[in-house]
């Protein structure tokens, strides 16, 4: 009897274990009752789901835009999956192959390159070439930066536009009689003066080396490449030997030079973006590589007499163009979208000048549409930046998203280079090796 009871206990426990494990790994096979997609007299019909991350830009613009889209297509049932944690919340559905129709790729836990590698996004190469918005304008013609081409194909459409660059305090510069350097040699000359005044010429958040990449290294590479931005694309495509090429080496030497001359603040390798920005606002350093969001991010900590100045790059040779390294957050259609027609229609609806102005006013940032911002509420820095990008003297580089393994090695190597641990040659070797591994 006792043996039997024991057996019973063991079996119940085993069964409960199996049940619990089976319960966890079961796939969600709930089939939603689909309405048929297509066109009705009232426009599009069926279900349509949009996933968007809600972060610094808020969700006011999204709600507004989707409401207008809904009015245009009253028979369409629109579902908004949104929030600051939406990328994590939706992840199981992407894994199970049940994604939303349109996704705005932004925020932590999202990476457009990875989504392409995971074959989750629809190839829109042909469609985007001729797609027009509802005002009849071609989307491509409206965009400030063109969609990224990855292995010859386009999967994402840049929605938000911004660029890295170097920031300084114009008021502080005026007070000290410093003029903003227009090329690398005048940057070196000015840095010597700034250093003599007991201030660090350059500070950057070493925990996030993408800042010094965007503000210093990448522009330097393009300048060294005769102002041709394609080299950045080739780096993104991991072309063999590109990280050892002459322009890259020249740029690395520039970075190594300013580090050897002691122009980079010693605090840099240990600090994150907020720390570096605080030190910059306290005039511990004269220049900081950053993005156009800087002004609004530090709004509450900026001293009253601080006047943000912006210059895209500092590494060009005399007479060379200024180089702006853009960043963008993108929209994409899921490869397994259930209503791709509505998804395309939505993107065509989004890309119009009125929506871009609305974006600038609701978020203070730039949408990837060429518009006249002077009448808008965009920040003064954004307006200055826009003038740079519209000028012939500035080259806006293509948007490139790196393979995350290669990017990590590149970031580590850059920090090692700035602290003098390695030489430019070793930087190149490390990154070439990582690229070779990633190409496999």
């Amino acid at each position, binding site marked *: *009897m006792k043996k039997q009871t024991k057996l019973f*206990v063991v079996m119940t*426990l085993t069964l409960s274990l199996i049940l619990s494990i089976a*319960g966890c790994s079961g796939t969600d096979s709930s089939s939603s009752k689909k309405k048929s997609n297509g066109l009705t007299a009232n426009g599009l019909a069926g279900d349509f789901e949009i996933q968007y991350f809600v972060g610094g830009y808020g969700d006011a613009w999204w709600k507004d835009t989707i409401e207008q889209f809904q009015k245009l297509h009253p028979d369409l049932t629109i579902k908004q999956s949104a929030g600051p944690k939406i990328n994590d919340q939706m992840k199981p559905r992407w894994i*199970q*192959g049940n994604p939303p129709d349109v996704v705005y790729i932004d925020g932590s836990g999202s990476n457009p390159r990875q989504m392409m*590698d995971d074959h989750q996004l629809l190839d829109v190469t042909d469609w985007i070439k001729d797609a027009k918005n509802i005002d009849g304008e071609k989307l491509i013609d409206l965009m400030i930066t063109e969609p990224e081409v990855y292995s010859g194909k386009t999967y994402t459409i840049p929605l938000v536009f911004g660029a890295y660059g170097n920031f300084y305090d114009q008021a502080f510069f005026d007070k000290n009689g410093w003029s903003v350097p227009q090329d690398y040699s005048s940057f070196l000359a000015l840095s010597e003066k700034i250093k003599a005044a007991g201030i660090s010429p350059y500070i950057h958040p070493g925990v996030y080396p993408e800042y010094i990449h965007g503000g210093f290294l990448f522009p330097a590479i393009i300048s060294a490449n005769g102002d041709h931005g394609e080299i950045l694309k080739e780096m993104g495509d991991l072309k063999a030997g590109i990280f050892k090429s002459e322009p890259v080496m020249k740029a690395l030497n520039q970075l190594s030079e300013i580090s050897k001359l002691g122009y980079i603040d010693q605090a840099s390798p*240990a600090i994150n973006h907020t720390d570096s920005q605080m030190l910059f606002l306290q005039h511990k350093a004269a220049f900081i590589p950053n993005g156009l969001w800087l002004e609004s991010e530090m709004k509450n900590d900026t001293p009253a007499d601080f006047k943000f100045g912006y210059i895209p790059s500092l590494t060009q040779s005399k007479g060379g163009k200024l180089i702006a390294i853009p960043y963008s957050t993108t929209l994409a259609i899921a490869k397994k979208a259930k209503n791709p027609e509505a998804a395309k229609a939505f993107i065509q609806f989004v890309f119009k000048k009125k929506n871009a102005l609305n974006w600038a006013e609701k978020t203070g940032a730039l949408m990837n549409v060429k518009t006249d911002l002077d009448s808008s509420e965009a920040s003064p820095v954004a307006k200055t930046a826009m003038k740079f990008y519209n000028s012939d003297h500035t080259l806006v580089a293509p948007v490139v998203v790196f393979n995350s*393994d290669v990017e990590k090695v590149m970031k580590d190597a850059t920090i090692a280079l700035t602290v003098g641990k390695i030489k430019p040659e070793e930087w190149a070797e490390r990154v070439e090796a990582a690229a070779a591994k990633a190409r496999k």
Partner: protein
Amino acid sequence: MFHIAKRERFIITFLIPTFIFFSVFTLYPIVRGMHISLFDWSGSSEFMTYVGVQNFVDMLHDPIVWTAIKNDYSLVLGKVIGIMILATFFAVAITRFRLRGTGFFRMIFFMPNIISAVVIGVLWRFIYNPNIGFLNAILSLFTKQPIRTPWLGQEDTALWSILWPSIWAGVGFYFLLLMAAILSVPTSLYEAAEIDGATQSRQFWSITVPLIWEQMKISILHIVMTTLNGSFVMVWIMTEGGPDNSTQVMGSYLYQMGFRQYHMGYASAIGVLILFMSLITTLIFQRLLRRDEVQLS
């Protein structure tokens, strides 16, 4: 007979719910993690490719994994020595030397334990800040030139700089544990020793240590386990594993690989490594610390 069956049924009703929760929240993730470690999977893709033990082979050739293991054990060693010396010293000082204000010290030492690790990390990052940090400001009082050492930004000081806050944050709990142990030692033993002319240090080594050995052992094992599994938080908040991966620990490298570089299979393999490392280390420590138990009759 009937009575026994009833009793066992009673026990089962308590066992099964607990066991179900244990299975769902502990066993299942462990088994699933081990399973994923055999695949090449991005963590977000529909497709997983079976690669056998390739992730583990890759790990052998990954220099960062070795750095991480080395750092993990440096932290284990540093924390065990640092925390045990300080906690024992404070506990003895307060209980045996009859200091005044015991309650005050107890509260002060325990304070870091109620602060979240994230807050501690951020706090110490400020202390270490090269330009506006507290540490450099203090050191600069003694030098002509102001000191601007980037404690967390240079490879030879970064890991040490993570160790101190970890010790500081850990002392309080073990201090309380040891203090309670010492207080449970009958005072008559110390009185007898004093009459026999034993010095304080003699009393410490011959009475206190043997009688609180069990608690010391538990403390050491607990420090080992929590460090191997939890050093991630401090590292991630203070350096994110940098500069140039010099402060990477297994936990932070797991996070980096899984959630930043999208190699969930590889990250799971690191997880499995952590599991086995913790198991083996705990077993070894348990062996090393075995001592004849001294019991009060």
